[in-house]
């Protein structure tokens, strides 16, 4: 399946962070790629939503809903900077 990009989860991100995040700058914890969240690769049909680095494909963020609660894993990010 073709990946979407970070634009597609703008609503989800705003729900989680309470802020517009597609223009936020993400830093990959693996390869040091820095770019807008909109430019990441996004898979919405994995169990949950998986966000990967466009350069090295490392998993940057995972969003899942477990029994009605939003679970967020940001372990792959070195930084996330909203404007």
């Amino acid at each position, binding site marked *: 399946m073709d990946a*979407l*990009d970070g634009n597609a989860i703008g609503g989800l991100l705003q729900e989680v962070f309470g802020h*517009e995040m597609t*223009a936020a700058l993400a830093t990959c914890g693996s390869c040091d790629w820095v770019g807008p969240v*909109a430019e990441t690769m996004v898979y919405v049909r994995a169990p949950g939503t998986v966000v990967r680095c466009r350069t090295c494909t490392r998993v940057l963020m995972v969003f899942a809903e477990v029994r009605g609660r939003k679970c967020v894993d940001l372990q792959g990010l070195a930084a996330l900077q909203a404007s």
Partner: protein
Amino acid sequence: MEGTAVRGRLTWQVATVSELTDETATVRTIDLQVPDWAGHRAGQHLDIRLTGDDGYRAERSYSIASAPGEPVAITVERLEDGEVSPYLTEDLRQGDQFELRGPIGGYFIWDPARDTTPLLLVAGGSGVVPLRSILRYRERTGSTTPARLLYSARTLPDVIYRDELDRYNHDQGVDVIYTLTRQQPPGWTGRTGRVNAAMLTGIAWPASQNPLAFVCGPTSFVEAVAGALVGLGYPPGRVKTERFGATGAPGGP
């Protein structure tokens, strides 16, 4: 989260269908009345949520087709294996209601006050929708920023907003160029085939003019076009991209 309208947070609200317009055999524009709409920017999208009688919910994202200041509209392409788009393009009637939240997005945005260098818009199929919002907004604000739209469609009848796009002309500062990838009408003298580096060389503003590009369409289309523009000297930060997946709307069918 519903019912907790915190500033900055998105809340679901009820939209009412005010008008339906068939754009092509498979594409329909849905004009909406949204009482608490906060206003949108050119290039943003919204999420819609449909709830079945059995409580099953489906969410999808759609680009906003109207310009800022105009009533909210989305343009939806029917995907044969889709779960949501057949309902929106075939069953929906004037006066029907569904839930939406938005506007969403701060990256794939054209701002006439900030973005005054030549504008290159490249669309694959229904990727033209947010770019149409940008062109309409350019016109509404009286912007003199020169704009070019390169629009890849399978056939001429598949071109969305064709009457509207055909009204633009060079004297208004807008050039619209179609390329037809699958079939051309008899006597077609326009472009044919997929957008590639050779085609872009003749159409894209030279990188020396510091143009701003917006590329929207299926993922493979966006990858190819964005890569070609960077090859022509566009800095990656001047090529804004939005990918719809294999086909259709962002978020899938």
